[in-house]
């Protein structure tokens, strides 16, 4: 079991490290967009890839990494976590036996939802056509910010294709906390990572990356040798009826509508209402979406209400006379001393 504990802890720590990399990168990207357009609402952006190509590249790499897609780093820590989960039928506790596969399923679900989320975040903000003049007139961010983002993007790729070195660096921590650590990874052939045994599971990000690049290269080479190289710019096809207005694009709200309907009705109590004016009335139709955050409503809000209620009642103590304050201080002193006597 020590090996499993070491694997799980390594996966967790490596994921924390990876998260620090891609989350910082994505926040930098969001900051660059905010600085360049002064806008935080995705629905008012779009098409920024043409104005800010380098920021877009860095943000794309961050999005792929956070969505746990190979060959980036998020996938490696997710993979290690799955390997740890697959070791857990051997656990002696029954509660954990039930809990761990459920957690595994939720992790798989959240990775897929993260991918959907970042297709939306990148796609609506950077792709498509600009939705406002702010987005149309955006400029690329400064060189220092770009350098920071691209450095993080490079680290995301590096930790994804050479994870062995990073895992080895975590070994002292897992050794100290669990009394075991994963086998040394850097001496393995071809920089493969093998958490338990070669026959069980192994992953080689470098080889995978190399093969993807090679296959893409072969594909591109064959295409350029044998296929027609001519290309031409034209209006979008859109099934024959393209509308020049950028408002006809998919928005962030419409992109997430299917997922909202599948998951949101249970988790967020999402409800949609369509207000259609009667025939002959020229007012626009309105679609209203209501979302409720259930944990917020049931867990946090009662506590917040209680604190507010108590604060309101105690507020009166702020406006006492000097005589009243002295009585209060004396009373508090007597009460505390009595508590102390009773305590002992």
């Amino acid at each position, binding site marked *: 079991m020590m090996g499993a504990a070491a694997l799980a802890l390594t996966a967790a720590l490596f994921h924390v490290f990876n998260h620090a990399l891609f989350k910082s990168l994505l926040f930098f990207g969001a900051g660059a967009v905010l600085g360049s357009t002064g806008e935080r609402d995705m629905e008012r952006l*779009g098409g920024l*890839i043409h104005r800010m190509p380098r920021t877009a590249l860095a943000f*794309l790499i961050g999005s792929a990494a956070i*969505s746990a*897609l190979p060959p980036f780093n998020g*996938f490696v820590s997710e*993979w290690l976590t*799955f390997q740890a*989960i*697959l070791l*857990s*039928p051997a*656990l002696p506790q029954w509660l954990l036996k*039930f809990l761990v*596969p*459920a957690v*595994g*399923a939720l992790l*798989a679900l959240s990775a*897929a*939802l993260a*991918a959907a989320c970042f*297709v*939306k975040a990148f796609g*609506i903000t950077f*792709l*498509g*056509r600009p939705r406002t003049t702010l987005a149309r007139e955006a400029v690329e961010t400064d060189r220092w910010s770009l350098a920071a983002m691209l450095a993080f993007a490079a680290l995301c790729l590096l930790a994804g294709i050479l994870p062995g070195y990073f895992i080895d660096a975590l070994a002292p921590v897992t050794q100290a906390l669990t009394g075991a650590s994963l086998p040394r990874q850097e001496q393995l052939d071809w920089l*493969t990572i093998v958490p338990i045994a070669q*026959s*069980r*599971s*192994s*992953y*080689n990000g470098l*080889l*995978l990356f190399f*093969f*993807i*690049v090679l*296959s*893409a290269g072969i*594909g591109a080479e064959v*295409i350029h040798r044998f*296929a*027609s190289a*001519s290309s*031409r*710019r034209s209006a*979008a*096809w*859109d*099934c024959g009826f393209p509308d020049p207005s950028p408002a006809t*694009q*998919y928005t962030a709200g419409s*992109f997430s509508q*299917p*997922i909202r309907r*599948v*998951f949101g009705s249970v988790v967020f109590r999402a409800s949609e209402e369509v207000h259609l004016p009667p025939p002959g009335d020229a007012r626009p139709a309105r679609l209203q979406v209501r979302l409720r955050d259930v944990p917020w409503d049931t867990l946090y809000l009662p506590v917040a209400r209680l604190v507010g209620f108590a604060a309101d009642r105690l507020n009166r103590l702020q406006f006492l006379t000097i005589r009243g304050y002295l009585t209060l201080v004396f009373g508090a002193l007597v009460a505390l001393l009595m508590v102390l006597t009773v305590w002992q």
Partner: protein
Amino acid sequence: MILDLLVQLGEMMVVLLFAPLLTGYVRKVKAHLVGRRGPPLLQSYRDLLRLLRKEVVLAHSASWVFRITPYIVFAATWVAAALVPTFATGLFVSYAADMIAIVALLGSARFMLALAGLDVGTSFGGIGSSREMMIASLAEPAMLMVVFTVALLAGSTQLSSIAVFMQGPDVGLRVSLALALIALVMVAIAENARIPVDNPATHLELTMVHEAMILEYSGRHLAMIELASSVKLLLYVSVIGCVFAPWGIAVSGQGLAAYLAGLAVYLVKLAVGGFLLAVFETAIAKMRVFRVSDFLGAALMLGVLATLLLFVSRVA
């Protein structure tokens, strides 16, 4: 070592060469089942060649994401397919990535394709991307649960080891495996945009998902994406064959005869898989898009159940 490399290269070529044939075969069988003659078997190859000769028409608003996506999608799908033991195990790169990585590679391809759907900024591309991600948000976890089930039984996530284990005597009939097989077939249907989830033959229905996403593509870009879709279909049939019908896969180190026999058996498996798919597609009607979540939710629950059964039934 050299032999493994040769087998690996052979495998990559087999996957690439037979993928359009499988697509054409499924179309042909479907046409026969509804009493039409259907296009010739080699029509998919002709379509690809014709697309290669055509000019690419790019929308004014298309960015570099739109232009690199076909190559990335093709490469990721091809590499994923090359990692599946089709006619022989012991592939050269099989230790580089396991079944989880194959699922994730297909995820990378889908991620890029969904972005390309949003790139031009049309409503059709958006609707396709949005629905594709909704389908993927259920299909991918369901697929991973199938992987978990099989991996827990075989004690490995490597497809080569799984295939060897499944050929061995320790498997037996298991409820978990049956549940996993059903879940995997459901996921395969959804992921390959087949009926009842999506319809690969329509172009202008509002029910379409995959075809809407790639609507703006033309010429050589479209050829790459079409080829990648064919390879993906072949990949899923191969995975089902390799895990649930592993007979006849040549094991590393056997002679040339074993490899040829493996190849012949593999082609039979493809034919059977394609035939069953065509029969299923003809027998069933297309679903409303919001019923797809029930369909895939069932697949996910079957997968979770299969995994949970193994967690509970195995005594440490």
